[in-house]
């Protein structure tokens, strides 16, 4: 059951000219939150903008004693709401509604977990990585960005014992090119179905679609976290629908309550509208 918290902002850390991390004092939400769930943030009190904006829960924020005191979001500035969040100051209070949506299910060993993140699509994987580490599931993060500037939090993942494969489009960091290249290479190296592994992906729609493709080609399960425009996050408005297979065609389902995490193979990618970064 989601709760709405008028949450104090504990910090706003700028990572780059258009990326920042905002931490909120909202233990009630963080306590309940599972990997891949999201919150609806009211970026301003008034009309600038009016509607809330959806954000994956990034980190669980803990105090010295390790008690959960809040949560953070990884914000990319693309418009009115995310610009407001880029400029917030500690001490301000914003309404945060959550946790919302269906989470990622972390696979247990011996199954392996491969996470594929594009840019701000990294957000849901911080908590998924923790959940996997807890279970002792061996995990890899394929992490792609435009350039070195867009690659963050590597030690967060390495500290958890996650293997990192970084790519940048300009080659300024890690392998040059798309993140799907190393993914595809390693998948073929493994050979179809050789070992059990599950793929989790989040990022721009074309990237997720590509991951779904290579995953299918090698017979792997792929779970994606979609990011459509969302008006309410609670199932009330039917704005956030995505096309899932139904017979020969597709059927629109509300991604805020039936997602945002979907089995990639159940989606009709041809009918998918791409929002995104």
């Amino acid at each position, binding site marked *: 059951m989601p709760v709405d918290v008028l949450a104090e902002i504990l910090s706003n850390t700028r990572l780059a000219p258009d990326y920042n991390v905002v931490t909120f004092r909202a233990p009630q939400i963080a306590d309940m939150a599972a990997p891949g769930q999201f919150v609806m943030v009211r970026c301003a009190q008034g009309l600038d903008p009016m509607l809330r904006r959806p954000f994956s829960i990034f980190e669980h924020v803990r105090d010295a004693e390790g008690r959960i005191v809040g949560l953070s979001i990884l914000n990319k500035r693309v418009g009115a709401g995310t610009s407001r969040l880029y400029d917030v100051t500690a001490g301000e209070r914003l309404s945060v509604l959550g946790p919302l949506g269906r989470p990622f299910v972390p696979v247990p060993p011996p199954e392996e977990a491969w996470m594929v993140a594009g840019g701000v699509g990294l957000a849901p994987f911080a908590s998924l990585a923790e959940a996997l580490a807890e279970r002792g599931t061996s995990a890899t993060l394929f992490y792609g960005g435009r350039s070195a500037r867009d690659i963050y939090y590597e030690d967060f993942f390495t500290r958890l014992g996650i293997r990192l494969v970084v790519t940048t489009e300009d080659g300024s960091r890690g392998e040059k090119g798309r993140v799907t290249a190393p993914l595809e290479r390693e998948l073929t190296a493994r050979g179809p179905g050789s070992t059990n592994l599950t793929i989790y992906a989040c990022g721009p729609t074309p990237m997720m679609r590509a991951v779904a493709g290579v995953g299918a080609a090698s017979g792997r399960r792929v779970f994606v976290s979609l990011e459509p425009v969302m008006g309410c996050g609670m199932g009330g*408005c039917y704005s956030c629908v995505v096309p899932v297979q139904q017979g020969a065609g597709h059927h629109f389902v509300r991604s805020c309550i039936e997602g945002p995490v979907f089995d990639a193979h159940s989606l009709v990618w041809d009918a998918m509208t791409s929002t995104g970064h």
Partner: protein
Amino acid sequence: MADLSVRIGSLDLRNPFMAASGCFGYGLEYADAFDLSTLGGVVVKGLFLKEREGHPPPRIVETPGGMLNAIGLQGIGVRRFVAERLPELRRLGATVVVNVCGSTLDEYAEVSRILSDAEGVAALELNISCPNIKEGGIQFGCSLTGTYDVVSAIRKVTSLPIIPKLTPNVTDVSSFARASEDAGADAISLVNTFLAMAIDVETRRPKLSNVMGGLSGPAIRPIAVRMVWECRQAVKIPIIGMGGIQTTADALEFIIAGATAVQVGTANFVDPFIWPTLINGLTDYMRRHAIARVADLVGRLEIPGKEHA
């Protein structure tokens, strides 16, 4: 203690605050967030006879002080609603109003008949005003005879309170209120959304897949309040007012202008826990102004001697 209950024809509401159609799913989506029986009423998403897929995304876009939507009335159809949703809504004690859609008079009548036979429907709100689909009843809602015909057709098949929902996209909304009253409506609700559009100037394309959509939210409130006030002068049947209500004061504008009850749509997206705030705010206002019953506020706009209109 102030009495918040109001009467819409034969329909008794615990308080004047209802969830607006299309902004509250089928109600059950909010059932584990709070007790649905605390609302005056829940108007569920518009229902046709058959299931509908609606329009492809993007279906909404925010605009200054409001939003456009072109959902296209995606829905599970009236039979599945009655079978799969209604029983649970009853169990939860929700006062259920169904937003009835149709492409033809027969479909309106058929949907209404099915709902009348079902247990647990408190009233029918006739959606003759959805701007987003050609066959969404707007052809009825923009014609006086069309409005009269739909209402009288449904009047024949049901004894439930029927509440035509009027479109604001007309020259004289009060004439549609009169047509509804003449045809036997128990009440009217207004306003539905304003036909509008937004353009992405970088791509030179509409921001909605459907090109046009309906404008809702605070931006439209002053127009909606005016229309409620005009209808109050024109008809005797109760009015359910809506359009941009975010606060108790906003709701009071509609009530003072002539609405017996109000609906909240867009604001429920911004604050799904808005209901207790509205209810407490109204109780507080009535205490401060020593008003015993909401009915004593309805249409009590005071116009100083000076020239009107």
